[in-house]
């Protein structure tokens, strides 16, 4: 099947997200007539879609994309004994907001824990990356690394914060994927425009005040059961179902005579066409039979450890090809997330890295060879980093003060190393970025102005909008 990418965001016009009542309320208030965005870029667009790779649990920044040899040098010493003792100056620890009071986790860890793996330089940019991510390292010159992230939740509610910009103790607001879908609409006739794969825990919804129509649709990488109700839950022949859809279409069409000008009726007819297409398109997208052996190998499908995530990423690419706008992947099972290495960090991180390293590099390379990396943004993120000090004998605790994420693809200046933490990886020392700066940058590249993504009656704070990170833009 040739992917069909419709040039106009027709979903914006034809499918009702349920925001009509807000538009009406604003009009009746005598405000300047408010309308939802029309789906067209507000500023020049550099990327059309996002593949969002979220590592749940908290990836150690020091053992991934921000290695800190000083940890090995001062191993076993307390932070207070090093020249960097000011890192724990209470003034500098103030911005964190505790949710889980008296929790065993999320504490200051004083005794420095050495790096659990080596690192080396990659690419022309010479970025240091740990030995657990050699394949991503081989793509270094495509990537802009941001080594100066911070957040305020010291527990896994930070997952919600990374997606929405708001701390768990504040009201739930739409996540980035919801804003993107709301702002740009869909590019496909056949698939939902905002998809989530993988486990979520702290908040299973995205749309919030934008409405459930902007929640991600959960897909499973299983051609037989990829999406709730995508296939009939009973025996029915293809022909019979076609006849059923024909009849529905005809009767709803005839209904126009009784209810002329009813927009909901027209939207519903359109939604049936989409639904019919989705029934074929979703399982077809999940089916990797047509993928070449080379492609599969590129993603690491031949490695048993990497295979599940590799499969998801091939599907992600196929979804991207078919016009899905925001593809959100959550890696790492369990309520807190698998990367949460309070103990046994070496074993945990090395094996999780093996699950994702090859598939992610495969995705970048595959997108590039297909010419899709030019207008696809790939984001690698996690909710926080891990402490320079050890927890127990062989783990690291949650570290919201400093951590790393990276982006590649449409509009990103590859081979950029942006920002940085101090010698211990504790605090950002240049260009600190709150999580919404990542959102702002993504929205900017997608051609959206976050300040114009507002709806009446819902005040957004300046912090919610974030600031674009100009240094990583091509």
């Amino acid at each position, binding site marked *: 099947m040739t992917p069909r990418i419709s040039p106009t965001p027709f979903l914006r016009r034809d499918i009702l997200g349920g925001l009509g009542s807000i538009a009406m309320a604003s009009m009746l208030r005598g405000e300047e007539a408010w309308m939802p965005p029309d789906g067209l870029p507000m500023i020049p667009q550099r990327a059309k879609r996002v593949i969002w790779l979220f590592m749940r649990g908290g990836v150690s920044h020091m053992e991934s994309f921000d290695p800190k040899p000083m940890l090995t040098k001062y191993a076993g010493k307390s932070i207070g004994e090093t020249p960097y003792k000011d890192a724990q100056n209470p003034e500098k620890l103030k911005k964190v907001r505790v949710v889980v009071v008296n929790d065993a986790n999320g504490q200051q860890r004083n005794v420095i824990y050495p790096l659990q793996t080596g690192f080396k330089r990659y690419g022309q940019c010479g970025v240091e990356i740990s030995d657990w991510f050699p394949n991503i390292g081989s793509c270094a010159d495509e990537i802009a690394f941001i080594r100066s992230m911070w957040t305020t939740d010291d527990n896994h509610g930070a997952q919600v914060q990374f997606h929405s910009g708001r701390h768990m103790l504040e009201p739930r607001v739409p996540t980035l994927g919801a804003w993107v879908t709301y702002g740009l609409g869909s590019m496909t006739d056949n698939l939902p425009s905002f998809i989530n794969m993988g486990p979520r825990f702290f908040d299973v919804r995205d749309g919030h005040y934008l409405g459930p129509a902007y929640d991600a649709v959960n897909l499973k990488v299983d051609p037989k059961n990829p999406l709730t109700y995508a296939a009939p839950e009973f025996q029915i022949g293809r022909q019979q179902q076609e006849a059923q859809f024909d009849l529905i279409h005809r009767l709803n069409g005839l209904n126009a005579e009784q209810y*002329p000008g009813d927009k909901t009726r027209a939207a519903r007819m359109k939604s049936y066409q989409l639904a019919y297409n989705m029934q074929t398109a979703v399982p077809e997208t999940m089916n990797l039979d047509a993928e070449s052996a080379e492609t599969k190998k590129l993603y690491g499908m031949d490695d048993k450890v990497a295979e599940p995530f590799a499969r998801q990423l091939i599907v992600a690419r196929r979804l991207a090809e078919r016009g899905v706008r925001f593809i959100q992947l959550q890696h790492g099972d369990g309520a807190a997330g698998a990367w949460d290495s309070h103990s046994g960090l070496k074993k945990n991180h090395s094996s999780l890295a093996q699950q994702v390293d090859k598939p992610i590099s495969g995705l970048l390379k595959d997108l590039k060879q297909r010419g899709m990396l030019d207008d696809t943004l790939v984001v690698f993120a996690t909710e926080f980093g891990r402490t320079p000090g050890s927890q127990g004998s062989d783990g690291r605790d949650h570290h919201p003060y400093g951590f790393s994420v990276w982006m590649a693809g449409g509009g990103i200046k590859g081979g950029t190393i942006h920002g940085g933490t101090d010698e211990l990886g504790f605090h950002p020392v240049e260009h600190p970025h709150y999580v919404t700066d990542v959102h702002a940058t993504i929205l900017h590249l997608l051609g959206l102005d976050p300040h114009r993504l507002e709806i009446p009656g819902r005040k957004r704070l300046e912090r919610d909008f974030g600031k674009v990170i100009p240094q990583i833009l091509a």
Partner: protein
Amino acid sequence: MALLPTAVLAVDYEKEIKPLLKERCYACHGALKQKAGLRLDTATAMHKGGDNGNILSGDPALLLERVTTADKEDRMPPEGEGSMFTTEQVAKLQAWIAAGAPAPAQEKPEDDPRAHWAYQSPTASGHSMDSLLATRLAAKGLKPQPEAAPELWLRRVYLDLIGLPPAPVQIHAFLKDTSAPARLRLVDQLLATPQYGERWARHFMDIWRYCDWYGLGAQLRHSQKHLWHWRDWIVESLNADKGYDQMIVQMLAADELAPENRDNLRATGFLARSYYLFNRTTWLDETIEHTCRAFLGLTMQCVKCHDHKYDPIEQTDYYRMRAIFEPLHVRLDPWEGESDFEKNGLPRVFDLHLDQLTYRHVRGDEKNEDKSRPMTPGVPRVLEFASFEPKAVKLPPTSSHPVLLPFVLKDHLAAADQQLAQAQKSGDAGAVKLAGLRLAMIQAVYAADLAKGDKAIAQAAALAEARYGEAKAEEELVKAEAAPTAKDAEKKIKTAREALEKARTKVSAPGDTYTSLTASLKAQEGPGENGNAKVQAYPEISTGRRLALAQWIADKRNPLTARVLVNHVWARHFGVPLVADVGDFGRRSLAPLHQDVLDSLTTGFMENGWSMKWLHRTLVLSDLYRRNSSNAGADPQTLATDPDNHFLWRMNPRRMESQLVRDSLLHLSGKLDLTLGGPSLDPAKAETSPRRSLYFIQNADVEHRFLAVFDNSNVLECYRRNESVVPQQALALTNSGLSRECANALAASMTKLDAPTFIDQAFLAILGRLPLAAERKASLEGFHALNEDRSLFLQALINHNDFVTLR
């Protein structure tokens, strides 16, 4: 920012300057407040200026200087209070000033905020809603649509009042007599069914944020266990047509109003629902915000940090309200017939820390309390029609000591009896002894609780407890010795021996301290509190603050309460509310077009004992409710003048809420189980459960896959449902087992009909009407194309837009 050279720019003050100043400046320099003695709401006021004189004079004018200066201390709007003027906006402002700041001659300043329409008591017009609407239509030259077919009206009232569509037999019966008295009879019949309470409880569960407990694994973080008791109270109260004013008072303060009325204590689930383990401020913020929004249409969330930008409500008003809730806490009381709180219990509120002071949080920062002045409990001053004077309430002993509830002893004994019966059945002598001693212990301990302070009885209780402990230790030892080869057997036997030794020592010197019967479960005050389960005694008085608040809300003199309710109910009958934002009756909501209708209904509602059934009857028996919802055949002039139906010349079509879709399908198939009430059901069983949808567990963690597709209610807040149209809805109705089984069951009841009769019956059953000629023809052809498979045809009709629509 540098000022641009004065360009010749034609600027329209009314269109370009005034809205900008309104948005950025009026909150502090308008009718609401006049900081620095300055108002910007008329050009005259700007010329007059404030403490620093005329703001339009000077070069550059003071106004321009203040919005452009690089000095953050001086720049307006101040940081955090609004965004800076853009270059373009500055240019326009500059051009306007340069042109001499032209403004209309008779420019009116902003109205006094206290004069806002919603803050004034509603007055009855003496006219019915229909005559008020008709007058306005006539004045505007608009022609109303004729009546809808009676069967469509019938489907509306069935779905609106009981949430289930009429069956063909009910349609036929109604069509025989569609007179006004027959319609009234029918509406009264529907309002008298228990399904009415379920249907409308679901609406109020949206507004009042019904939410079953959830957390992380077994840790309860939000809401309370067994919150369904509150849901059942809502259903029962609606069915009994309890006055809305009484409902409010019971939800906020049943424990203070009539502490011994256990049925009504269930109402306080409204407050228990906002319990949050980790943060007291978050808990109280939600309580304040949603109490105010749900009952009063007041938006309070912004007042937590600063004075309201639109409404005359100050930050101190927020913390005065917090002081009302400051002593509030939550516990489970026992539910008659069950002594295990995991299995059942009554979530209820009570005042715990009576003397806890409330301080204002500076800029809403809970870590920065203004300790200079504790806040006194109170309501927003602008709406204070009588002084707020809470009176402390003396509580009965059963409130402060739940163990004294009459059924506690009986239930504990029953549990022990059951243990004894089981032991006897098994013939295990040790177990029999143990159960017998448990019975004795329960009685002794209870006697000691009753005879507070009697030392001899307390000693007897301590002894009984020690004896029971000894028997238990003996049992443990027997168990350990019976398994000599088990892992760590030796160690286990040793431990058991030591424990028995200890227990025997206790029997020889039991003292006079004992463990009371567990008759309540206090919710943890934060995750660090471990002794909460041991607390069995509570304060003997309650502050009466919540009762005072509730009585102020439910007072006829409160201009908001009844209006907000009428607007909510109106929105659910007519699709579009009279006041567009159902949760905000503040100054951002201009006086509604149909304010006379709203006010007449509001006064009528209060005069009729705040009766919801009166309100439903009035609305669904109105001319408007009978009107056709279609544009077809509409007067072209009317359609052109008011295409969006603001003047209500036709009825509005609506989509079924998610629960209605599912319940209706089950009802059509004849499988709907109409059992009322009870514990919330696991959503995993939702696919096969025949119960009504309001009974499924609802919280932020679980998602009911069918309901989710049709815009299920958001438990965090849901003042109105969304009505989206997305392809997943089509998939759910074409592919779910639910829709197919419904079609199968209907088909089984229609096997004997010939094709044309079958099609008519199918339309009647699913859409509540007969097909038009063209529909009949298309249906016959479609039926043949489906090889006359009745079930497939019926399922197609379930997917007709008119099935999910209230036409």
